[in-house]
């Protein structure tokens, strides 16, 4: 009962429970310990287990103005739950926070922008993005639906680019995935686009789930948005073949 409010806020349900909360007002940081409960004792009191214990920690979405971390404690024979407040082994972030980052990257927010907006450690954000790019991180980041994530404005575009951007196929158009998969007829002459496409194609090939592939499609489209003049030859073909 003591931590019922936190369980409601975080979406923690049996057999998991919040067993400890540490708040450091000076550092504006909140650490929430979530533990596995094998069963309840007298009067519903929570009972801890005995045996081998695995502990993991992830940075989570902020709670109010506080940085929030989740510390998970479980018996070694119990799997890590696929919950918004837990995360993959190699990730510094929970599924919820990872999903938020994917949306921000997909909207064109830079690493610097993401770090500042969510008050994250730049090294951890870089490590997370690197994990996505190399295929080490993937899996289901959709535990928190994108529609629940408030929109974050990407960097404002100069007027002329904004106008051109509206003429590009949407990021969900198959043309971008065809380009990334090397299955498109578009002739690429722009040097920056050739080099970028080579990098993105490698990352696309290594991607272990559709959300990361979608992120790569966003990155490719964003290049074309920013370089409509320099890549005019390619953009014209992309518009033509996307119809």
């Amino acid at each position, binding site marked *: 009962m003591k931590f019922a409010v936190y369980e409601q806020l975080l979406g923690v349900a049996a057999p998991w429970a919040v067993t400890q909360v540490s708040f450091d007002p000076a550092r504006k940081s909140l650490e929430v310990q979530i533990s596995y409960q094998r069963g309840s004792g007298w009067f519903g009191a929570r009972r801890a287990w005995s045996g081998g214990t695995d502990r993991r920690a992830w940075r989570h979405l902020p709670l109010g103005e506080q940085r929030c971390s989740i510390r998970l404690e479980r018996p070694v024979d119990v799997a890590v739950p696929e919950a918004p407040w837990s995360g993959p082994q190699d990730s510094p972030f929970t599924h919820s926070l990872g999903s938020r980052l994917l949306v921000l990257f997909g909207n064109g927010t830079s690493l610097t922008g993401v770090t500042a907006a969510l008050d994250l450690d730049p090294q951890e954000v870089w490590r997370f993005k690197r994990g996505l790019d190399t295929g080490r991180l993937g899996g289901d980041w959709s535990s928190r639906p994108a529609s629940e994530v408030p929109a974050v404005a990407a960097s404002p575009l100069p007027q002329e680019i904004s106008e051109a951007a509206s003429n590009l196929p949407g990021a969900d158009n198959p043309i971008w995935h065809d380009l990334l998969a090397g299955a498109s007829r578009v002739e690429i002459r722009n*040097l*920056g*686009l050739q*080099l*970028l496409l*080579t*990098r993105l194609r490698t990352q696309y090939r290594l991607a272990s789930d559709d959300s990361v592939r979608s992120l790569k499609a966003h990155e490719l489209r964003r*290049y074309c948005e920013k370089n409509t*003049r320099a890549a005019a030859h390619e953009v014209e073909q992309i518009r033509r073949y996307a119809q």
Partner: protein
Amino acid sequence: MTPVPMSSAGKLMSFADAVRAIHRGRVLYVAGDESILARLPAGQWIGGTIPYFMGANGGLCTREQVFVTELPATCGEPEFCRYDAGTIPQVCVESPEVGFTLLIVPAFSAIHEQFAREAPGYQDMYLKPLVGWVAGVHLDDLGKVTAKVAFGPTGELDDQTAVAVHVPIIKGHSPSLQILNLFEPGTGAVIRFPLGGFSAADVEVDGKAENFSRWLKRMQIDTRLPLVADYSGAMINVSIREVEEAGGLTHFYAPVFPELEYRIAAPVPSYAEAFRALQTPPAGSLTFCCNCILNYLYGELEGQRIDPMHGPMTFGEIAYQLVNQTLVFLETEE
């Protein structure tokens, strides 16, 4: 888009003329021997050491002149920066939204290696033009002196940091970064480097494991020819620096990457003729140009003219990422 005629892309000049150019307050980038760069006054310029050039009278080596390029009138207020191995990953983030960055890196330094290995993954890489070159030394001075860059606002020379100028371009114009590469992949074996890096021993040649040094010797490969990889239609070179005996390592002037396939380049009979045959822009639109010292040496370009592609012949070229044996140039177009 129409190339816009503007002031000359660059030319060789004496120390005295370079001093006058600096005192006029124009934004400059300068290439020349350390003995001259060290005496230039502080001002709005960056530079790097190298005594090899392609000038109006052809290729030459000189310690008595410097190659000076002045930024055109379509450029806005520049920002001069210095980077070390820790901060260089931010170079593209700090580049203007409409404009370009010119970067000079000292050869064989930690920042040179960092840039060579990691630049393809830098934040905002490829989104904004990043052009430049790797400063070098006279070949007689290899191992005796270090390559250096010069930070004009203070006049300091350094062999461990890079210098850059971020240049915004006025509305209605845009920069275009391009390369002229003489080399196409040959018809020989496909080579993969599982570990990547500046050196390789065990590689895959047409899918079979080989020691690269032994394979090069057995096949009698002309190691003046670079490895060529196809980057979605752009041919990018990696030049061979040294082949160790007895099945040792092969060393390169740029890193090879494990995700790419490479071929030894097809031979080029005459480098000068091949450069002249490639389509080059009108001189008036050029904002920057550089070429490779290996093209100067292997192509015997001393005394040969490649108009209008004048500039330093460097220890590496920067066309977003590090490239070898490539002519790199930047145009500003309307």
